[in-house]
């Protein structure tokens, strides 16, 4: 538990302080230097430079910022959506429950990757979003976050629904109901705290899944677009140069791997802490 948490914290700090570090080192991750392409590690460039002579370490920090932002933002958004759906389904029951859970089953059953490709390639302009907005770089990030949420929300929804079903028949909830507490109050005060633990686990795990998903989208050319770079897009860019400059691909790949495995291990450790009987799930 300590090791993965420490690793994650390290990666996060390194990524989020990227711009600051760049400023401190006097470098600019976007500064091209055609005369120093593929440079070996040196004092000026601790990890060397890439195919345009940009500092690889600064680029990795920058890429991490984008990857982690996508991963964390999408995981939190998915948790929020999933919680809302799960609470509604679990507490209200009946038709609401039926429809929402069928929807969740549907999403799980669908061949997701091909559908994501369709969604990732959508022309936002055609669905009435203004051209300038549809084409801004913030939207290309948002698009990936939305896609990730569409895939990931079901886990949280099912968890929360299950926990809500159990909790709502517990005595203290019934007592609160009989005292005339409103639905929002009950959900917020009595039910949500009880589902927090599994929700935290699911969200931690999904950060890793989303970073992997982003790298797949990048591989297919549907991820973040230059000049923005994520680990996934750095990796798929470096792919073509893998035999001549393998390190350009190995670093971002390793960063993805380390981050994802740290998320998974942390999630697993949290799970065991919250529920020692639980042998861990995938």
């Amino acid at each position: 538990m300590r090791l993965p948490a420490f690793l994650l914290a390290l990666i996060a700090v390194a990524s989020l302080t990227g711009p600051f570090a760049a400023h401190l080192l006097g470098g600019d991750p976007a500064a091209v230097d055609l005369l120093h392409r593929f440079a070996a590690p040196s004092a000026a460039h601790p990890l060397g430079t890439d195919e345009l002579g940009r500092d690889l370490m600064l680029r990795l920090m920058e890429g991490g910022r984008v990857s982690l932002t996508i991963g964390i933002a999408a995981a939190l958004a998915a948790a929020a959506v999933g919680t809302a759906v799960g609470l509604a389904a679990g507490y209200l029951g009946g038709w609401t429950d039926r429809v929402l859970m069928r929807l969740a089953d549907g999403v799980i059953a669908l061949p997701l990757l091909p559908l994501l490709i369709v969604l990732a390639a959508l022309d936002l302009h055609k669905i009435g979003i203004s051209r300038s907005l549809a084409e801004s770089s913030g939207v290309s990030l948002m698009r990936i976050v939305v896609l990730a949420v569409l895939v990931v929300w079901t886990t949280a929804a099912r968890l929360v629904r299950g926990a809500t079903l159990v909790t709502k028949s517990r005595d203290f909830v019934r007592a609160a109901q009989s005292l005339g507490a409103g639905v929002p109050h009950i959900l917020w005060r009595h039910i949500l705290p009880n589902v927090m633990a599994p929700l935290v686990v699911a969200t931690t795990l999904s950060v890793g899944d989303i970073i992997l998903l982003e790298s797949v989208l990048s591989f297919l050319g549907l991820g973040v677009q230059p000049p923005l770079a994520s680990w996934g897009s750095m990796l798929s860019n470096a792919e073509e140069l893998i035999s001549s400059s393998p390190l350009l691909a190995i670093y971002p790949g390793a960063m993805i791997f380390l981050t994802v495995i740290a998320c998974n291990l942390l999630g697993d450790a949290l799970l065991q802490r919250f529920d020692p009987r639980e042998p861990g799930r995938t």
Partner: protein
Amino acid sequence: MAHDQLTIGIVQFPPALNPNLEAVAAKSYVLGFALRPFTVFDADWKLVCLLCTELPSFDNGRAVKTQLPDGKAGVDLTYTIRPDAMWADGVPVTTDDVKFTYEFGRNKQSAVANAEMYREILGVDVKDDKTFTLHWDRLSFNYAAIDDFVLLPAHLERAAFADPVQYKVRTLYATDPTNPGLYNGPYRISEFVAGSHIVLESNPHWAGPVPYFKRITIRAIENSAALEANLLSGTINMIAGEVGLPLDEALAFDQRHGHDYNIIYKPGLTFEHVDCNLDNPALADRRVREALLRGIDRATLVKTLFAGKQAVADSFVEPLDAGYTGDVAKYPYDPARAKELLEEAGWHAQSDGPRKNSDGKTLSFELATTAGNRSRELVEQVLQSQWKEIGVDIRIHNEPARVLFGETLPHRHFDLAMYAWMSAPENSPRSIFRSDEVPTEANGYAGENLVDYKSPEMDRLIDALEVELDPDRRKQLWAKAQQLYATDLPSLPLYFRSDAYILPKWLTGVRPTGNQYPTTLWSTDWGEAK
């Protein structure tokens, strides 16, 4: 070790092989082995006959100037199909095929890709089984070239064409691609596995020189890392230049394995440039455009990113072209002069950030190119970084090719756009420079003068050179057009793209043309070093 077969790797699997539906590079590469066009430009950029006996000219009487009812000049061209030309099922190639192809091309429901050419042909007269005359509605200097007129086998395809609307899915090229009667070249297609590979075998009815390789397999491998690995493991023998690795990847491959292969870099007709939308008030100022051009170090860019294998462009005509002149204004890297020009144009340097004019407007442009084209994305980031040095802010905004070419560029929603023009030898720049070729709603967004370049002098030069039959006088007109371009700078010339052919050392006779015709048209010259 003697090889009697050859396996070629390409990066894109061709769509259905009908030569007259949808032009795709991978398709023309494969069909180069199996179908003969009448005329092509060879590796010396000379027009030659492949399926015909001789090129029409006014001297040999096969070309006759005509007067059209509206007073314009037209031309009648007489061609004779080679007497020994045969489809690979033993049926001779005849004027019946010519008539059928013309009928197909003229039919408005036939889904023919390039209908323009058929509209220009007013009629076909058949003299006998082998000789026919085309009545053309215009006379241009390259009148003898009819390379897009690729014959379809009437004896097989006429039945499929019974319902013209359905032809695109009933054509035997789609339903029965291994039917030998569909091919008349040195090879015929003997196996066609969509998405994977195509096998060609020598055509028993081919009357020309017998090709050295009995069997040629073409494998499509889209991922370039996998393509290279296949080459190294010997699964494929070579990588085609026409539909192969992008130059920067070929260069990286060259560095590691160059000594094991024969790698040919051939500069071509693809002119990479940055279009400047002249409706943008800042870009309308010629000084700003010159500053932009002087602000980028094209020489170093070409030397480092492309190992000097592709040439810096000073104008839009390729150095190999007959119309080329080197005598144009040149703008080498000169950031100091670029800054001066911007100051003169009223864009003043700021203590931090990009330049501003006296109205407080920032000197900032959006630069667009095709998303996913790695080479362009790299160059684009170089431009962004170098322009930042002279105080120009660039926002990169890339789009998939089909959005860029289908929507953004025709509707002219751009400031700066980096892309390429593909041309042919001595190809008239009419659609890119003539003032009436600006895409508008009124003309259905046709035309490729995307920057809104309007120069009466350029219009006059284009009109004159298209109909100038005298080569020397034409060359002068070409030179003037290039000089005018280099003075006006409606777009910023970058470089001419090169293709990389990665061949085994024992393979001989592959001669890249540098024009749009694939090496495969000359596959009978291919052989093996002893």
